[in-house]
């Protein structure tokens, strides 16, 4: 069974139709890269998966649970789908370690010592063990985003959602975040990534989806699609991002 399944999913903001009857199945282990012009619905599509946006039509099943169920069921989905934001959104009053240990403690109910021991391992994994006791404002953007990735992983999700994770970063800081993401993909993590990093899409993505006007207009193998764009619009888009 697919881990994420959009079934004629629509999303309206008032009169504005942002997702238009999207059908999409994502299997475990896939690295799906979502691209498209601004306003095409790619971020909304991502945010519907963990219910940060409520769908207004059709259905959306994540790990066997419909996002429409809401409440406790929606919280179960959210525990299975970690999210990384463009603006990092680290908790500013907590150290890097406390940020990462927060989810396990408050969501999974782990004791402080155990949660912090796990958090330290995860910080080590993203290369920030020495920065564990720094608050976010004392970290660079790239470091903050790596802490944010560790924080999302700490809840032990089955899927990771990335919403333009490198868009707020200076070019030289993007790489450290992309490296962590690449490593994650190699470990077999299922990932859905909204990004403009075409090299990441080509090298790491197993699937590339191009969105336009709330619909999926191209869905295929990243290398093939990028080398040989099947539509004029995609060709045009690729020229602008690269």
């Amino acid at each position, binding site marked *: 069974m697919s881990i994420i399944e959009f079934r004629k999913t629509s999303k309206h903001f008032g009169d504005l139709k942002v997702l238009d009857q999207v059908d999409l199945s994502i299997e475990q282990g896939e690295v799906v890269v979502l691209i498209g012009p601004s306003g095409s619905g790619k971020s909304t599509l991502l945010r519907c998966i*963990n219910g*940060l946006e409520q769908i207004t039509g059709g259905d959306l099943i994540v790990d066997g649970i419909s996002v429409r169920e809401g409440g406790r069921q929606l*919280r*179960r*989905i*959210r*525990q299975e*789908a*970690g*999210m990384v*934001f463009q*603006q990092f*959104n*680290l*908790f*500013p*009053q907590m150290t890097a370690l406390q940020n990462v240990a*927060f*989810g396990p403690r*408050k*969501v999974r109910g782990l004791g402080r010592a155990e949660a912090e021991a796990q958090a330290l391992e995860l910080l080590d994994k993203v290369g920030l063990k020495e920065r564990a006791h720094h608050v976010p*404002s004392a970290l660079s953007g790239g470091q903050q985003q790596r802490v*944010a990735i560790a*924080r*999302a992983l700490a*809840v032990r999700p089955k899927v990771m959602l990335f919403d333009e994770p490198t868009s707020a970063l200076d070019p030289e800081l993007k790489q450290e975040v992309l490296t962590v993401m690449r490593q994650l993909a190699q470990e077999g993590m299922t990932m859905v990534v909204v990004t403009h990093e075409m090299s990441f899409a080509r090298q790491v993505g197993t699937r590339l989806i191009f969105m336009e006007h709330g619909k999926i207009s191209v869905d295929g193998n990243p290398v093939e699609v990028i080398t040989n764009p099947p539509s004029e619009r995609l060709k045009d888009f690729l020229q602008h991002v690269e």
Partner: protein
Amino acid sequence: MEIDWSVVPGFLPQLAAGARVTILIALAGLVGGTILGLIAGLMRAYGGRVLNAIAFVYIELIRGTPIVVQVMFLYFAMPVLTGLRVDPMTAAILAIVVNAGAYIAEIVRGAFLSIPRGLTEAGLAMGLPHWKVLAHIVGPLAFRRLIPPLGNQFIVSLKDTSLFIVIGVGELTRTGQEIMASNFRAVEIWTAVAVIYLIMTGTLTAILRLIENRMRIL
């Protein structure tokens, strides 16, 4: 009439007793007002349509009427309407609770809503229920932003207790008035009263400064 400061020390015990009543009203009123304000503020910020509307009406009713009218209503009109008589002290404390509560509600609402939405989303995205996000993430951040305007409101409310002279509570201003009525030492007595208010508000300011310094605004 010449000014004679030597009359002041003789009245100090009486003024101190008045100051104690002032402090009691302010303290009890502000504890209640802060609790009420927190509830009403959270209702405004996160309540559904009904809770939001209730809090809105309460806040606008109180902000739109003078505190003197409010305390007169509590002391003179409420007994007529409900048959329940309250003593002046209770009416005074209730007036501060209800009045400060409305202003504090707006302070609370502002502080909570000023915390970036992304932090709430980050908490929700982990699978936390909304109340836990408020309690563990947004609340502690909002609290830091709450302190300066809350301190301001505490000082305003403390001074507002002087208006309860109208229902005959023996607080500091009324005590000053009574002493005045017996010896007509206006300059000496009102200066002493003003200085005592300054000492009270000054202490409050110092405490707030201390709390602020110990906590970084994030």
